[in-house]
């Protein structure tokens, strides 16, 4: 039988994958997708908890998260496009002018 723990472990694994992706990848779009992965990992645990607690609140939060993720995707992709037009690359190691 699939218990709450299974869901939470899945969520944690997905989230960690997302974090590692954000930290180690250089392509802005991949980093972006990793962020989405983290968000959805959280969504999984939301739904799991909601089911476990017999509460609708967790389900509702998932909708909010998805809405925010969609908005963020729109803005983020627009920024990436703008950067690409400027630098002709989406490698974030080449975007380090905001420093000391």
């Amino acid at each position, binding site marked *: 039988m699939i218990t709450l723990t299974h869901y939470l472990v899945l969520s944690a694994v997905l989230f960690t994958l997302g*974090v590692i992706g*954000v*930290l180690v990848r250089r392509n802005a779009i991949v980093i972006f997708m990793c962020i989405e992965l983290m968000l959805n990992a959280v969504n999984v645990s939301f739904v799991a908890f909601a089911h476990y607690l017999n509460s609708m609140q967790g389900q509702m939060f998932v909708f909010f998260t998805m809405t925010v993720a969609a908005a963020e995707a729109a803005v983020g992709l627009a920024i990436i496009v703008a950067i690409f037009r400027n630098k002709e690359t989406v490698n974030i*190691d080449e975007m*380090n*002018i905001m*420093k*000391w």
Partner: protein
Amino acid sequence: MLNLVALILLFPLIGAAINGLLGKRLRKETVGYVACGAIGLSFFVSILVFTGLLQLPPDTRLFEKQLFSWIESGSFKAAAGLQVDPLSSLMILIVTGVGFLIHVYSIGYMHHDKGYHRYFCYLNLFTFSMLLLVLGNNFLLMFIGWEAVGLCSYLLIGFWFEKKSASNAAKKAFVVNRVGDFGFALGIMLIFLTFHTIDFTEVFSAASQGNFAVGSFTITVITLLLFMGATGKSAQIPLYTWLPDAMEGPTPVSALIHAATMVTAGVYMIARCNVLYMLSPFTMTIVAGIGAVTALFAASIGLVQNDIKRVLAYSTISQLGYMFLACGVGAFTAGVFHLMTHAFFKALLFLGSGSVIHALSGEQDMRKMGGLKQHIPITYKTFLVGTVAIAGIPPFAGFFSKDEILLESLVQGNFIYWLIGASAAFLTAFYMFRLLFMTFYGESRVDHHAMEHLHESPGNMTMPLVILAGLSFVGGFFGLPGASAINKFLSPVFGAHGHSGTSGAEGGVHHSAMLPYLMMFVSTAIAVAGIYLAYQMYIKKPEMPKKLAERFNLIYKLLLNKYYIDELYDALFVNPVKKGSVLLWKYVDAKMIDGSVNGIARLVGWFGGVVRYLQTGYVRNYAFYIVVGCIFIVVFAAFGW
């Protein structure tokens, strides 16, 4: 009519405001009219108030007008209130009356000066402050006036501030006065602590109800502190050194502030606080002693000075010493009487010397004068009246007041006071006639350049001289021995103790009826002797002073250099303070304070320089920090540390 008293203050203030704010755009004539008009109106109202006061029965002659409540903080209350009583009404008449004449004189004297409106603004402001000092009905208001006259004195001494010596003199006057004012302020605080009020009427009635034993320690400290203020403002030993230097100011200023009114504020204050002073015999001895010593000391310096204004300055210090001597022996009436007559003849003498200086295109050295009698006859005649008055020849004003002081110092004080006072009177007669002879008699020593411009002063300058000469002549009759009007008038203020020995039945002092007349004869003889000596030395044998100076070289030099007191003060106080200030500046200020401020800034800068390398610009690094932070938070939440 007594209700009008606030107007006395208001007019000079308005005058000062008009001249100070708009004076630059007004014509010179207008500035003069505004200033003189303000004081003239003030004088007129003063007369109304005075007559109003006279209509009251003598015992109820105390009128207080509360203007508004000024400061209220806990149990501390200070009202802005004015007080009219015989003493203050006499003072406002002197201040506005003499002040008016000096304002008129100034129109002529300052005519060519480019700071004309500034001058009149200050002068009006001074009159306002002095009236505030005199009319205030509590110690704090008096203190405000006291400080404000000090400020105006500073501004007017340094009126020609382009001149280094003038700005130095102004600073000196201000700083020396600060020393005295420090004592005065402490005295007021102690009064509040002791009496829980600073209102004159309340303090004095509390003091006279016998709550304090005669010789009480607190009262002695209070009176000594107040007297410290008086020595500063009234130029007594040890704080007199600023007054001779104050002669750097325009001459009418010397006449008004540094002879007739401001410097007498100390005498006024002591007379006002007579109830307190009578409770402290020790302070009274100090006051009388300092007064007597100052009278003699300053007179001896005056003997050999060559600057016409400086002689008068030392004479002023000496005469103020007389007033303190009178107050110190309990003869407050005599002190105030001398204050009044002195205001007349010393203002006259200063204005006269101003007229001489004006005639000689600015020359002040008496060695370059002489023989001016025919050239400036009105100045000469009025000056002669003033000289005779101060020397103490009957029936001129100075005779009566000085004679009364000498008599009181003998009757109520002791023989030593009298001896010092009488010696100072002898010296006074001598140096004043020396001044007169050197200036107006003998061979002319005027250089030919000044001789060409030699002229008598215009009418608006000679007119005040003539009026003041008249006052110097009749002023003494207010205090005729045996029938003293001023004595009777002031007796409500000074109560039983202020009564003068010469006032006949009221006095009740034990001395034979012959004594006053004998004393009159003696003081006249002393004055005549001084004049005769001056006549011998400066008219008959003009070579004699030089010979004497050579023969008694040491004494002469000592006197000429004013006993080296300035040098002594420089060595004792001024230079150590200057050196200490330099040390403080170089080490404490520049090194410690600036160092710590700059050091902190540098530390922050250095730290920022180190940690700014955290800002790498790589998004990955920031993300890493976030992750590390999150892990910390999670661990913290899980294990709670």
